[in-house]
């Protein structure tokens, strides 16, 4: 309903008296209505100052334009096309964290990008297919996992990479991450799956004098990277949880959708979301909470799912998804456990820690640094609040590679300044960037936690 249709509103006879009662002229906002977000923007530009892309790329107009301003232009003029600069947004979501007025900037960007990709970008262009290939990493990783050694050789074979760059625009500057010879899921099955996990959890409860039937159970969203590339992270999570007496299940799941949102591939993301809901909804109904080891996965399930999808199961999943260490901080005495433990002899004792942007938005930017203060003999040094610059698939694009490395420069510098020569982060692609810029090996905080608390 427009202002003019409001009953009782007569512009020719303005009500100038003190009896004036403002009325609600807009209908109640539903979840997908972005008007309230656009109206909340008071143009302070704090988001633009926080945008790592705008800081190094003069041609990028920044989140304020991409979000509320573009949304308004679009409302006024149906013909208004989404500006192609939306593809230069890396979806780091820093603007969400920066906005003092609660504008859902990343939701606006995701929505605009999805529209741009589905309606304006040519589906026959190389860019479209390159972006689809990158964002459907799970598919490529699945194929590679069938013959990981061959894939690892081929994907870092110089001439093949030159060809990938020349034909598809996937930068040849980066080393492809190695595919594990055994995926996390294969390890999980070989180990005996949920039944074995229950047995281990019950044994741990007995050891600690807890009720052997305690209701401690979690469903693990491992995501693609922990499955295909770093199964050691998934294995560490399982061991830590079982140590505290939790039985773990590993439901059927798709990609979290993070790379798809960032590339505007909303239909691909929806397909994977369906698969994830199918796997996790029955577990939620059975009382399992959901945990993730990748902070972009937990971010997607918590924030982007409810913002972008309207399925019935989405809110329940979002409401009960936790980052893997965060959940233990709520339910267990982690500081106490670390204070009593000793630093592991066979693990590095000094780390240069980078907080992923997506961890930041979940309030987790300082979690690792603050938690391991309780462990004597191990130093975790925060390398500052800059973005790593890779933002998932972003830094893999030939035309974005330079920008990505410029954004990462601060982080590389601070990593070199830190005492440790091992990096630490929760995000797989931040880890790629950290390794690429410093040649340090990169570990996940859960790996350290497992090394400290379990055998």
């Amino acid at each position, binding site marked *: 309903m427009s202002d003019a249709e409001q009953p009782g509103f007569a512009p020719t006879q303005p009500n100038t008296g*003190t009896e004036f009662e*403002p009325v609600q002229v807009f209908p109640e906002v539903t979840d997908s209505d972005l008007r309230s977000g656009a109206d909340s923007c008071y143009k*302070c*530009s*704090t988001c*633009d*100052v*926080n*945008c790592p892309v*705008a*800081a*190094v790329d*003069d*041609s990028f*107009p*920044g989140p304020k*334009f991409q979000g509320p301003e573009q949304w308004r232009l679009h409302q006024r003029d149906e013909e208004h096309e989404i500006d192609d600069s939306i593809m230069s947004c890396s979806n780091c979501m820093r603007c969400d*964290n*920066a*906005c*003092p007025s609660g504008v859902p900037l990343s939701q606006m960007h995701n929505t605009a990008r999805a529209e741009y990709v589905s309606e304006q970008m040519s589906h026959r262009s190389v860019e479209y297919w390159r972006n689809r290939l990158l964002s459907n990493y799970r598919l490529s990783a699945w194929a590679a996992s069938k013959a990981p050694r061959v894939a690892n050789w081929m994907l870092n074979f110089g001439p093949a990479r030159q060809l990938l760059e020349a034909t598809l625009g996937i930068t040849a500057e980066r080393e492809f991450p190695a595919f594990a010879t055994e995926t996390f899921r294969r390890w999980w099955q070989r180990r005996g799956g949920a039944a074995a996990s229950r047995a281990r959890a019950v044994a741990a409860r007995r050891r600690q004098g807890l009720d052997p039937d305690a209701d401690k159970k979690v469903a693990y969203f491992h995501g693609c990277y922990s499955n295909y590339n770093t199964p050691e992270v998934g294995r560490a999570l399982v061991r830590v949880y079982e140590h505290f007496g939790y039985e773990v299940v590993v439901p059927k799941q798709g990609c979290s959708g993070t790379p798809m949102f960032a590339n505007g591939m909303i239909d691909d993301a929806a397909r994977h979301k369906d698969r994830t809901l199918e796997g996790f909804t029955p577990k939620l109904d059975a009382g399992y909470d959901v945990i993730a080891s990748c902070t972009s996965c937990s971010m997607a399930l*918590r*924030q982007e799912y*409810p913002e972008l999808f309207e399925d019935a199961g989405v*809110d329940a999943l*979002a*409401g*009960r*998804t*936790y980052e893997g260490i*965060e959940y233990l*901080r*709520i*339910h267990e005495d982690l500081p106490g456990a670390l204070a009593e433990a000793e630093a592991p002899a066979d693990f590095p004792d000094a780390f240069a820690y980078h907080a992923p942007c997506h961890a*930041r*938005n*979940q*309030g*987790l*930017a*300082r979690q690792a640094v*603050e938690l391991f*203060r309780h462990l004597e003999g191990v130093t975790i040094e925060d390398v500052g609040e800059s973005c790593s610059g890779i933002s998932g698939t972003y830094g893999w694009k030939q035309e974005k590679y330079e920008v990505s490395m410029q954004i990462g420069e601060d982080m590389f510098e601070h990593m070199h300044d830190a005492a440790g020569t091992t990096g630490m982060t929760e995000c797989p692609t931040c880890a790629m960037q950290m390794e690429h810029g410093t040649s340090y090996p990169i570990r996940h905080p859960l790996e350290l936690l497992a090394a400290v608390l379990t055998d």
Partner: protein
Amino acid sequence: MAIESDVLVIGGGLAGMMSALAAAEEGASVRLISYKQSTLRQASGLIDLLGYLPGEQRPVVSPYEAIGALPAEHPYAILGVDRVRAAMDRFDTTVGYDGGGAERNTLVATHAGGYKPTFRTPQSVTPGALADGGAMLLVGFDPITDFDAPFAAAMLTEAGVPFEVHGETLPFPIEQASDAGIGRFAALIEEDPAVPATGRTLRESIATAIGAVLGEAERVGVPAILGTQESASIIAELEAALGVPVFEVPMGPPSLLGSRLEAELHAALDRAGVSMELGNPVVDADADARISTVYVEKNHAQIPYAASEYVLATGGLVGKGVGSDRSQVHEPVFGCHIPHPADRSDWYDDDVFGAHPFARFGVRVGGDLRPQTADGAIEYQNLRAAGSVIGGADFAKEKSGSGISIATGVAAGTAAAEEAA
């Protein structure tokens, strides 16, 4: 089950940070939770204590002396001058600002051509003080539309400052998009790349351009864009090239002076061992006479946090620590009472620049800083308030926002830690 600490501070602005720092320095384990980045990024970066008494046009010269003239419900009057002074002393020892220990206000130029009384200034701002000093050149850059140097100079001359002021607008040596943000300029100046076709660095080019219009000026003011972290060395380089002091003029949001203050306070909090979680709001609480648990909403999940003592430093109407709808004014986290007239038309003054009652809305506290119910009882035994969530002051008119935050923040944090011990 919850994430635990002795003291939980809700709100990451100046009041919350000073409160967390004071509590940690008392030996408590402290966690600070903030919905967003600190509101200091929207603030000037100056530390005001008391610039004007209510209803007065002339700036206050000695704020500590003027506190005695404030109404009884003003936060300074509630705390008493000694606690205000002790809190400012703590700020002085924490942050490397100028004016530490000084008793008098100083006047500084604002980016819009006005001036204001303030109490402590970042070192990069100090040489621009208006009460003394020599002839001044203000330099703007044409892509930075928030600072019109010739206009600001004309306004200061009109106001009768006791020195010559001249304003010049210069092109920025490296061409920028017309809508480039402040952060872009700061990052470039910090990076200091070569300017194409000149063989000079950016900073050298800026100094050369300013030198060409320097004339008889004895000091030069530029908008506050001189880097995010390395402003001191950038200023030193410009001063060496120009031979006169260079200062920054505080700008509107987003404010680099405010961001630098935030970074300095975060470092102090880190050293004091304070845990910090930024990015999500506290939305709910379990409480009877005491608060047992608060809940932080991370999108859909609610994460429980528990502490012995809580500090409410969520801000005022702008910071969303005070909410309102058409029927009432409320405090959204714990539902603390906020005194306000029943009729909404009494919330504001008809004069736009008048003394609006809404500007003073906030929780009512006693000397213990515990929020009180409508009949004067304590809302929650383990809750104290700090900063602009406390009512009774019109900080925008008084120029008292930072001082109230520091004074009530230190007092609330110290009391919370003592109680938790």
